[in-house]
């Protein structure tokens, strides 16, 4: 079964710092990859997704992610974080083989301080 690893449990950054959150997955076949954000007390919100094509994907709120197939990675980046980016970030994967559920990583809590 596929699994998703998010190595950073809690990241603390100052405003304007650059962000990179790691995500690695274990699955030998073709996958669809997602990043979701969950602001405190709110529902999941899709940041970006990768299905195929350009491995550098741009999402909402200035986030981007790069799919590196050889490394089984899909790291999330943002050049300059804001206090409002404080949230929980979840990486998720599903095989591109049919109607299958998303498998989520454990999440990374991002705290942005002024």
């Amino acid at each position, binding site marked *: 079964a596929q699994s998703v690893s998010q190595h950073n449990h809690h990241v603390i950054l100052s405003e304007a710092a650059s962000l990179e959150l790691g995500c690695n997955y274990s699955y030998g076949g073709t996958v*669809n990859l*997602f990043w979701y954000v969950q602001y405190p007390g709110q*529902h*999941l919100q*899709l940041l970006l*997704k990768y*299905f195929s094509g350009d491995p550098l994907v741009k999402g909402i709120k200035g986030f981007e992610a790069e799919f590196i197939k050889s490394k089984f990675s899909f790291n999330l980046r943002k050049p300059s974080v804001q206090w409002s980016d404080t949230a929980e970030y*979840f990486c998720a994967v*599903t095989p591109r083989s049919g*109607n*299958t*559920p*998303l*498998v*989520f*990583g*454990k*999440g990374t809590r991002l705290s942005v301080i002024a």
Partner: protein
Amino acid sequence: SAVISQKPSRDICQRGTSLTIQCQVDSQVTMMFWYRQQPGQSLTLIATANQGSEATYESGFVIDKFPISRPNLTFSTLTVSNMSPEDSSIYLCSVGVTGSGDGYTFGSGTRLTVV
């Protein structure tokens, strides 16, 4: 993309009782997925519900505790049975969207507190 109506949005229940959560989708979908999000945790898949067959449960989840119904292609229910405080979580349903779009749609969640 599909729109899911999930209810109830929250409930406080006594231990030993059961709660049934409903999800209604505005279009026909083959598979529906049920997740649990425990406080401060990620989403964990409970089961996959396919219309016309028994749900497929993930390791650690059993039908007696989390019975699921899928009577048609737009509706599913998840029951949390014989509840204990450890069942206090957010429960969400989800459907996949084939082709382009968001990929997956989630219900708004049911926040369950067991006292």
